[in-house]
């Protein structure tokens, strides 16, 4: 038999527990995390990814996940001997982990890209740069999304 006092304690705990980012269920989140790991392996193979050199810019709080400005810039002299070959952007909780991949040549002059993306949930976005010497560098950004890009169920 639950007393009133116990019930109140349990109810308070239940209210306090939910995390702020539960727009998709835990099962789905786990599946998407696995898909993200797969996509990451496909991009980098067995190579080690180091932090730094890459600067990923995203607004920290987004009202509408349908169009989020994103920009990536990589520190690189962009010469024939030392340049950025590719930049990949991946997400943890979108239905597909890939967002955008760009292949660059030294002719780009500066390794940077700006675009607008869709985000399905509050999550971490990762940018990975592949350099001409074969090394990988990355940067991540935490983004809080209040209206998901995938929740407006096809109102056409």
């Amino acid at each position: 038999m639950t007393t009133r006092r116990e019930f109140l304690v349990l109810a308070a705990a239940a209210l306090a527990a939910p995390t702020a980012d539960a727009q998709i269920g835990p099962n789905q989140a786990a599946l998407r995390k696995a898909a993200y790991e797969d996509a990451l392996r496909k991009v980098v193979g067995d190579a080690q990814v180091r932090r730094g050199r890459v600067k990923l810019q995203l607004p920290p709080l987004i009202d509408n996940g349908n169009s989020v400005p994103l920009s990536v810039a990589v520190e690189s002299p962009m010469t024939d001997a030392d340049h950025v070959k590719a930049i990949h952007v991946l997400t943890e909780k979108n239905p597909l982990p890939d967002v955008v991949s760009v292949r660059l040549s030294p002719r780009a002059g500066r390794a940077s890209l700006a675009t607008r993306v869709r985000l399905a949930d509050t999550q971490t976005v990762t940018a990975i740069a592949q350099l001409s010497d074969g090394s990988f560098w990355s940067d991540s950004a935490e983004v809080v999304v209040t209206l998901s890009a995938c929740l407006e169920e096809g109102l056409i």
Partner: protein
Amino acid sequence: MARAVVTLPAQAKRGEIIEIKTLAQHAMETGFRRTQTGELIPRDIIRRFTCTYNGTEICRVDLHPAIAANPLIAFNTVATESGTLTFQWVGDNGYTVTEIASIRVE
């Protein structure tokens, strides 16, 4: 009506790094949305964007459904010589748009 817009400086100094902004008109249908009767709306996106400068490829971008509608792509290049830049968007259902812009380099 223009299906794509490209912004770049009309002239530049030799060796200067210029910024190019491109915008294509496209709904970028993700393939994950449903109609009110529950049917899946098929995917219809731009898959690839390429930019060439006098025949040399500057960048090649693979786009996925996570790119917002009317994709904006902004990038840089070195102004090496006067000539033309060709921009091409290729997508599902035979979508192809080509834009040409010219630049004068001094």
